């Protein structure tokens, strides 16, 4: 077999192997180099896999040459390649950022451990997207989760420890619920391979265990994707984690969990079954609650990172709203917002991390008058904020347009108004930053202009610029999302 045939497994193996190598390397610089190299290779692999999927359709790779359904199969299709691209791209951009950022927030002697955990988290997330086996998905979910618990606990503030513990408890409950669901599916079908499971479920007549499994999987993944009201772990975790970790996890953690939900709903259970269950209505109500309540809570936050965290909960609500609409355009809106929001939030957290480095904290008081000391960073945050609101010209606008269009197709006019009304709440919390940074004086007026170091500023600015670029030319993001949605619903029952 040529090397390119092994790409699916290399996608996961390369970051996975770099983790123990980083530990062995001991020195921070060496560990950093190893992990960064691995993540760039992973990004290249993701691009290569996307091209393969475009030409071949579905790329199937049996691990160890054991044919599915007896062996574990890695299965890359339009949706998984999209998610792989997002995760690996975010990692490739955040890693250069990490170097200076964690110097400030993580004790020097723990840097090599930080990088190895980062690599492990990346490997786990990539594995979730690449795998075609249900239990393998669980294992990777736990790998990425455990690594992220460690990463979050490395934050400077002691509250990071409590946040990490809380996330550990809730995340483990979520993963365990997920495993219960898989267990039931295994009992009903006798297989763990997702594609095989789908066929066998179609033939099942006794629905009650299947529906129970669907319920457990939904609740389990809802805990991990922070669907309101199961979002309690998110604000503290994002706030007290080191800034680089916030940037990485905010852009990828919840998104991959949503991917798992989509995969199970459409590829395993089948859209018909799932939406018969009133999952659509439940998701709709919870998404609307997330959009409004989380945005409202964000408006009154006094810490900017916590504001962004609640904003994430609200934005995840948009994604699940698209999911609940049960149509190709709704699903397209979800998938494109998955990518657009990941991009925007990563950029925002990276910029805020730069501000934390320069000003010493992320409270609104610290950020007062930021336009004087860090004009580029402030402007970047404003641009990112415009993306969260969904102003034309930003990536967020593309997703919002799609979502409103999907609601219009179903003639749900009240939903159209709900979607745009919640964007106005986003204006409220974005404008809090504008007023603090542009209308107040810095606490230390003598501060000279001092941007974050280049290795931090450049990746952050690149990501924000990308979010504007993809707001003006959405062919890659929207096109990819539409293809993925078509594929997912087309192959669903």
């Amino acid at each position: 077999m040529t090397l390119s045939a092994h790409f699916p497994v290399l996608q996961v193996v390369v970051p996975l192997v770099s983790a123990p190598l980083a530990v062995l390397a001991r020195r921070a610089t060496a560990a950093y180099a190893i992990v960064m190299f691995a993540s760039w290779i992973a990004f290249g692999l993701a691009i290569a896999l996307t091209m393969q999927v475009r030409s071949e359709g579905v790329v199937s790779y049996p691990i160890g040459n054991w044919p599915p359904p007896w062996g574990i199969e890695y299965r890359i299709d339009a949706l998984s390649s999209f998610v792989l691209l997002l995760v690996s791209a975010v990692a490739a951009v955040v890693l250069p950022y990490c170097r200076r950022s964690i110097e400030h927030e993580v004790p020097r002697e723990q840097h090599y451990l930080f990088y190895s955990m980062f690599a492990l988290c990346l490997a786990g997330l990539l594995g979730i997207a690449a795998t075609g086996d249900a239990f393998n998905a669980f294992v990777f979910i736990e790998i990425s989760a455990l690594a992220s618990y460690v990463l979050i606990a490395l934050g400077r503030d002691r509250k990071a420890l409590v946040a990490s513990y809380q996330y550990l408890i809730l995340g483990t409950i979520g993963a365990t619920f997920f495993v219960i669901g898989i267990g039931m599916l295994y009992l009903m079908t006798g297989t763990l391979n997702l594609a095989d499971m789908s066929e066998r479920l179609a033939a099942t007549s006794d629905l009650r265990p299947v529906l129970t499994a669907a319920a457990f999987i939904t609740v389990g993944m809802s805990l991990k994707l922070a669907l309101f009201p199961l979002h309690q772990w998110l604000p503290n975790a994002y706030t007290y984690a080191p800034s680089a970790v916030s940037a990485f996890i905010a852009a990828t953690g919840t998104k991959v969990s949503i991917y798992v939900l989509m995969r199970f709903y459409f590829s395993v259970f089948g859209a018909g079954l799932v939406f018969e269950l009133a999952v659509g209505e439940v998701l709709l109500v919870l998404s609307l609650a997330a959009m409004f309540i989380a945005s409202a809570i964000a408006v009154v936050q006094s810490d900017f990172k916590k504001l962004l965290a609640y904003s994430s909960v609200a934005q995840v609500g948009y994604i699940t709203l698209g999911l609940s609409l049960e149509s190709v355009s709704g699903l397209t809106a979800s998938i494109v917002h998955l990518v657009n929001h990941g991009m925007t939030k990563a950029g925002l957290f990276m910029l805020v991390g730069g501000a934390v480095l320069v000003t010493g904290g992320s409270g609104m008081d610290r950020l007062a008058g930021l336009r004087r000391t860090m004009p580029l960073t402030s402007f970047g945050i404003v641009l990112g904020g415009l993306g969260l609101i969904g102003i034309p010209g930003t990536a967020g606008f593309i997703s919002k347009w799609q979502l409103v269009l999907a609601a219009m197709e179903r003639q749900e006019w009240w939903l159209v108004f709900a979607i745009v009304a919640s964007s106005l709440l986003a204006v409220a919390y974005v404008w809090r930053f504008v007023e603090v940074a542009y209308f107040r004086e810095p606490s230390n007026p003598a501060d000279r202009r001092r941007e974050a170091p280049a290795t931090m500023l450049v990746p952050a600015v690149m990501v924000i610029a990308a979010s504007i670029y993809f707001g003006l030319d959405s062919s890659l993001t929207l096109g990819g999302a539409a293809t993925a949605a078509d594929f997912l619903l087309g192959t669903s029952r």
Partner: protein
Amino acid sequence: MSTDSIAVCLMLPLAAAGGIALANNRPNLREAVSLVASAALVLALLGLEPAVLAGNRPTLDLIEVMPGLVIAFEVEPLGLLFALVAAFLWFASAVYSIGYMRGNGEAHQTRFYLCFALALAATVAIAFSANAFTLLLFYEALTFVTYPLVTHHGDAEARNGGRTYLAFLLGTSVLFLLPAVIFTWHAAGTTDFRAGGILPEGMAPAAAAVLLAMYVFGIGKAALMPFHRWLPAAMVAPTPVSALLHAVAVVKAGVFSIVKIVVYLFGLDLLGGVSTHWLTATAGFTVIAASVVALGADNLKRRLAYSTVSQLAYVVLASALLTPLSIVGAALHIVSHAFGKITLFFAAGSIYTATGKTNVSQLDGIGLRMPWTMGAFAIGALSMIGLPPAAGFVSKWYMLSGAMSQAHWAAVMVIVASTLLNAAYLLPIVYRAFFRGVDADSKPHGEAPLPIVLALVITAAATLMIFFMPGVPLALAHALAFGACE
């Protein structure tokens, strides 16, 4: 070749912005950039005029943002008219600003000129929008680019004014305009502006009425009641900002958008079958109510702000009448109000710069000390009221003709009544200035600085010229109304 001309027109203000940023430390060079760029823009736009009047519609396609949704530009009569007005008044404002900003020792002047240039870029882009999607994009951009101008002073008052500004403009555009554009896309499969409209013929009248309402109220920049509050709130800005943006660019972008949507998105035929009484009623109410508030306002800028709200509603009222004559009137009123109102605002700023006075009650006898300023003010007032020899007379004539041709007596009554109200709140100022004695204990002062007076003379002269030589604006307005109603 005309594609290049569009590109030139769009790039000029952007290039000016770049030049202003670079010339940060050399004020004279920086101001020269604004002056040269605005003059060049006027010339470039005039260059497009013959082609457009001959029936050509130069186009320029930029980026396809989403499948079927392109950022595209197309020059048609109304857009060219609007762009010409904006560019010409940019030049006048640049002259004026030199006097005002330096005379009042304003800070952050580079940011001011920079945002001005960017606002003009957005305005030209709005004027040349080929479809509602492009219009929406640059409409929102204009809101954000003018926010730093409105909050220029950076104090608590400016911040609060900015909040109201943003709340009303973003609120209306996100809640109403955005869904309206998306719905247009959903129903018509395109958002292009085309003669005769693009909405499907079989569209239910109720749906069309709701969509029209969403557009009209979603375009908050047109300051139709009850979404007009941002206009007086934005008066916290320095006067050149109030003058250009709120007499010309921002509010005109609003009413321009409404006229464009009525003519090119809905089409006069489709709207003929839809009940628009609610629209004429709202516009009529705004005309009268705003004039009444203006009567009671002592702060000069506030009075002028409410006068603007009232005058903008004229344009909406005329559009709602749906006849070619009234459409000519609407288009012409965009022009005449722009020149007249900017003259009035310039005068207000001139008074403030020379004397520090802001209220009408303080203006006794000021005409004797500042004859040029108050002379220009008088001409502007004549235009607002609609008396010859000022530009306002021409546009009001067409609007009245349009109303009478429809036998729409309520509209006629509104126009007549508001004319009287305009006189009531503007003429007394002129009277006080020239025919009352100066307060004994007021400090002696002269005219405002030369650049201010120069700008005043330019705009007042233009206001008169439009009456005597309405050639270009009238031709374009006719091309719009009769070209679109074939």
